[in-house]
């Protein structure tokens, strides 16, 4: 009966005299043995559809005033391909709004960090009721002569530019429900295609993976190429929601290898799809609903190759502050040899 909480006009009163403002709030275990029968009332202000659509159209035309300081969204862009200092710009207060932590580390063996990471959060309180917005990107570059780090840097920059222009801008213009807009999935796929074009043009010998997530309200929209990963972590456990575009993953799916054999396979690092590979790039799109207090984790293979899923989950669950969890995960990977660059983003959904 949880849904009752949210319903206006449902009451416990008798049918003849329904108290208009009575909203039932059912709290956990204290639900009465026999729940009262809900009543759906005829709303006093039921609107004919013509009026309703006018209201909507007017709302869409409203200019967004950016000088209303108290309603302006907070934007916190952070990007880098080198190890970042601990974040001081975002002081997460879990449970109230979208919070995140991120870290990218060179590891213990490599001479440079070819990973790139990028995050934005916007959160606002106003009568416009804009959902929290987040954009998070992890890219793991490949190629000699600094081509790898250039490819991943161009990729995160291109995607960030395209997504802010085509989604964040529409959000703040209140144009998200414009029927002629491309779908959110299409915008995200186009963003990755733009990155592919840019890398192909500018870094012909370089390539990169990319896993990018847009969060709006309680939904995550993910676009993905390569073997960086996105995980969903909640009370039920940890779930990998991206699929590696690697040879061994394909062999596992075809029952030719077990995951254990894949971990030792001489060709376990071979990808069959990446940014900068060719013009015709097939990008995976995924969208998922995020439950309150769940976490989304993006990482490069420098993390998931070394740290088992259940350990990742325990570390994320243990920390209130997602930035602290990022540090612990990177430290663990380095303790285990840190053979590759290690990059992680943890996003916490408010509860």
């Amino acid at each position, binding site marked *: 009966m949880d849904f009752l909480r949210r319903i206006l006009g*449902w009451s416990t009163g008798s049918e003849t005299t329904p108290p208009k403002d009575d909203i039932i709030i059912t709290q956990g275990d204290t639900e009465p043995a026999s729940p009262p029968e809900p009543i759906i009332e005829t*709303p006093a202000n039921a609107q004919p559809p013509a009026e309703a659509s006018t209201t909507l159209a007017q709302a869409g035309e409203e200019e967004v005033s950016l000088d209303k300081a108290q309603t302006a969204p907070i934007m916190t862009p952070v990007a880098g391909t080198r190890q970042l200092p601990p974040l001081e710009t975002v002081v997460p207060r879990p449970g109230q709004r979208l919070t995140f932590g991120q870290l990218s580390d060179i590891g213990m063996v490599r001479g440079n960090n070819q990973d790139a990471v990028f995050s934005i959060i916007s959160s606002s309180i106003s009568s416009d009721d804009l959902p929290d917005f987040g954009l998070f990107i992890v890219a793991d570059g490949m190629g000699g002569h600094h081509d790898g780090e250039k490819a991943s840097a161009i990729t995160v920059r291109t995607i960030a530019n395209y997504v802010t222009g085509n989604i964040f801008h529409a959000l703040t213009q209140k144009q998200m429900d414009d*029927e002629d807009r491309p779908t*959110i999935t299409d915008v995200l796929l186009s963003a990755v295609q733009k990155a592919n074009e840019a890398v192909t043009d500018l870094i012909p010998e370089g390539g990169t993976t990319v896993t990018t997530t847009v969060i709006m309200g309680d939904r995550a929209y993910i676009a993905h190429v390569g073997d960086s990963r996105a995980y969903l972590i909640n009370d039920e456990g940890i779930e990998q929601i991206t699929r590696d575009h690697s040879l061994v993953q394909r062999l596992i799916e*075809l029952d030719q290898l077990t995951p254990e054999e894949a971990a030792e396979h001489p060709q376990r690092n071979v990808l069959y799809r990446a940014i900068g590979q060719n013009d015709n790039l097939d990008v995976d*799109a995924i969208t*998922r609903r995020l439950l309150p207090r769940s976490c989304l984790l993006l990482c490069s293979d420098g993390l998931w190759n070394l740290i088992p899923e259940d350990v990742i989950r325990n570390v994320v669950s243990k920390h209130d502050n997602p930035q602290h969890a990022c540090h612990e995960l990177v430290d663990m990977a380095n303790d285990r040899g840190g053979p590759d660059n290690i990059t992680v983003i943890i996003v916490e959904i408010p509860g």
Partner: protein
Amino acid sequence: MVDTQKFAKNLPEQPMGEGALQPGSVLQGRYRITGVIGVGGMGSVYQARDLRFPNVTRHVAVKEMLNLTSDQSVRELTLRTFERESDMLASLSHPAVPEIYDYFSNKDRAYLVMEYINGRDLEAIINSITEFLPIETVLQWALELCDVLGYLHLHEPEPIVFRDVKPSNIMIDQHGRLRLVDFGIAKTFQVGQKGTMIGTEGYSAPEQYRGEASPASDVYGVGATIHHLLTRRDPRLEPPFTFAERPIRDTNSAVSAELDATIMKALAFEVNERFPNAALMKEALEKLTKPSFVGFSRPSEEVADDLGEWGALEENEARIIWRFQCEDEVRSSPVVHRGVLYVGAYDNNLYAISISDGSFKWKYPTEEGISSSPAIAETENLVLFGSLDHLLYAVDSRVGQIAWTVPTQGSVQSSPAIAHGHVFFGSDDGNLYAVRLSTGRVQWKWAGGAPIRSRPLVTGENIVIGMESGDVVGLDLSGQMIWRFKAKRAVTSSPVEHDGLVFFGSMDWHVYALDITRGWKVWSYRTNKPVISSPAIGEGKLFVGSVDGSLHALDASSGKERWHFDTEGQITSSPAYADGAVYFGGIDGKVYSVEVKNGRARWQFETKSPVPSSPAVHDGVVYIGSMDHYIYALKA
């Protein structure tokens, strides 16, 4: 290897380093290096001149292999393997196998001296063309390739497996003859590589990644090479082992169905479904090159076809558990509850039929036809349905006695939805009605301004309705509008919900996925005709029929098509998902059962008339109505 693994991380910048031989240097006092033919990860191939023939220019190819292992015993083992395989190669005698002249080794390298082949490899040929190659040319190469591999596969005492059939290992020499150039000896010298690389081998059979290779693995390599030649689609740039999803004729229509099928057989994922060796594949290819006699075309297959049709007829009848005849067409979709099937018909009746044997229990007559599908209110023991006579009926589901009706100002074609003690339904009068089940009293109605013929979707917090105006509206449970989405044409398809997304089809040819809380467009998928069918969800896929004649299976999370299944007519029936299969009717008069995993037909059942009705699947039985007046109970 050179191109596909160009992104190797962490390899030495120049793998050959300073060790590469310079032109002019002489090996064994006999072979003077004149140039480099190729550079690979394990060593180079040089062109050299044989100084034993001072009066003529005799060129040889010198293949150099680096023995990089630091472990002394492994190094010696590697060398012995190299010598053994060189001896074996030297014993071969086939026009497509290059002659071996000599081999020798020093410190960290081994050398193989062989026939120098003047020509181009198939990889270079593919890269240089802008049109498809003539099919006869490719077929001729395929025959020559199968001929030499067949020679190796039938080698005594044991078959020789080439292991690495791919365009770059196959040359066409200056006389136009096909030659095999790399006998995989280099693999002995391969060391583990580090760092992520893009690009798979593309031509290797799946079992080879487990370290197993047989003549059938080479057959796979032949298939992959020919597939690449005929389609010009590089398998190294496609997801591995996806040939089955990419028939050659999809890209190159000049290829015959028989040739396509032969190559696809070579590319079968399972080893035992391929030709066991290249000699047998050659036989199959030879049959294609022989002209067939007119009027004398393979009688055995025709007999098989005839038998197939006979079998299909018998199978059709065998699938029926029972059938029940109504007095008019059945367009409405049945619902099953406690052993009883409820369905409306154009003869104005709502029928209650026992599912155990198809016996009649009761019927309830309305004033006009019933096109909406009934809904069951379990606690109230009611079956609810709309009629073209403008009424919504609530009838006792046990005995068929009327409980109450709700009058509207238009036909009720919308199927009702039951939730929260209420029934929700739309009418052609443009209203959505919320009616209390216990009393039949209208709690509220929401004026949509256009006929509502789809079934409302009611979740814990939202109501979503599609309208004939193309509007799709999200309401809260008290009937307040939260959002509105406009499709370009009518939405008759009933919305369904999964993971916070609402899915529906539109007459504007699209299937849409919206965020249920805000109405934002998450993805859309375009079919080739209007979509009236309502989607069903199973295993993360969305199934929806289109007037374009196909059932489309889309990834619910991205809107990407996973497969489609073609029928011979429109599909307006809404599919039903159960136990790994999807069931639906076609205007071609058939009921289909399709495998969810791959979109292949499990069975089909022929009725006498179009099937716009949607199936109900219950305990391994499919219940569906047809315009031939029958309700069928079919084995799932």
